[in-house]
């Protein structure tokens, strides 16, 4: 086989791998968008973030190892871009430590109802806007973990890898994020009653 043939074959193989990579990545775009939407405060920001993610992914596709988790790889690009973006915009001040426990929201709703919440449904007390608003009030380091685990359905291990933090940090941030979210939801739910 001549050298030109070998070179031609290499180029053809690379083109094939690249098309496959791009198609697979595009097939995950709904899931990537869903996570992006949870991470930022507006749909426009989420759209920009997803577009930048795909631009970067398609440029650096060679650094993806075939057979590994492509969704996690894409979300790692996305969360890094989001961290850069968040550094540019003014950071929200740290919230005060939460003294109350995991059942803050439940207890607040129970208190305002004056009885245990037996068959009562959460959805009857909170609108979609309440949830989106409450999520946007969670400081972004905590929010990233919450969105990946609770909305993106990633394991602690995957979230740790995507955000490049230890698994213990994922767990503590998740714990904290859920508490902040519940405080925010409680404010909105109690206001509504």
């Amino acid at each position, binding site marked *: 086989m001549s050298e030109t043939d070998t070179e031609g074959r290499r180029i053809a193989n690379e*083109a094939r791998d*690249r*098309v496959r990579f*791009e198609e697979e990545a*595009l097939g995950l*775009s*709904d899931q990537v*968008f*869903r996570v992006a*939407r*949870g991470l930022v405060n507006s*749909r426009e920001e989420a*759209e920009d973030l*997803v*577009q930048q993610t*795909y*631009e970067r992914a*398609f440029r650096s596709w060679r650094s993806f190892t075939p057979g590994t988790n492509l969704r996690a790889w894409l979300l790692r690009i996305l969360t890094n871009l989001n961290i850069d973006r968040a550094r540019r915009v003014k950071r929200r001040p740290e919230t005060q430590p939460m003294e109350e426990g*995991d*059942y803050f*929201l*439940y207890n607040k709703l129970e208190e305002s109802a004056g009885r*245990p*919440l*037996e068959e009562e*449904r*959460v*959805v009857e007390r*909170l609108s*979609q806007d309440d*949830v*989106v608003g409450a*999520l946007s009030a969670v400081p972004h380091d905590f929010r990233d973990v919450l*969105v990946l*685990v*609770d*909305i993106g359905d990633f394991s*602690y291990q995957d979230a740790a890898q995507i955000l490049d933090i230890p698994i213990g940090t994922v767990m503590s941030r*998740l*714990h904290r994020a*859920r508490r902040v*979210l*519940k405080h925010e*939801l409680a404010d909105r739910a109690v206001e509504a009653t």
Partner: protein
Amino acid sequence: MQPFLDRSLSLEEQVSVETHLETCPWCSNRFRFEQELRGYVRVACSEEMPPSLKAKLAALRTPLL
């Protein structure tokens, strides 16, 4: 409760939580509430990707020669 909801307990721990929930209304009310809250947060934050964005992403593909 949170590790139980995250399914990050060992099988043994999980069974003991489940057994407890069957007999304790205080905990089972809170469990149901927490479970429903998570589902609701997930649904409330799910927004369909706009078709215009999908088209923009598709346009980023490398053109075939």
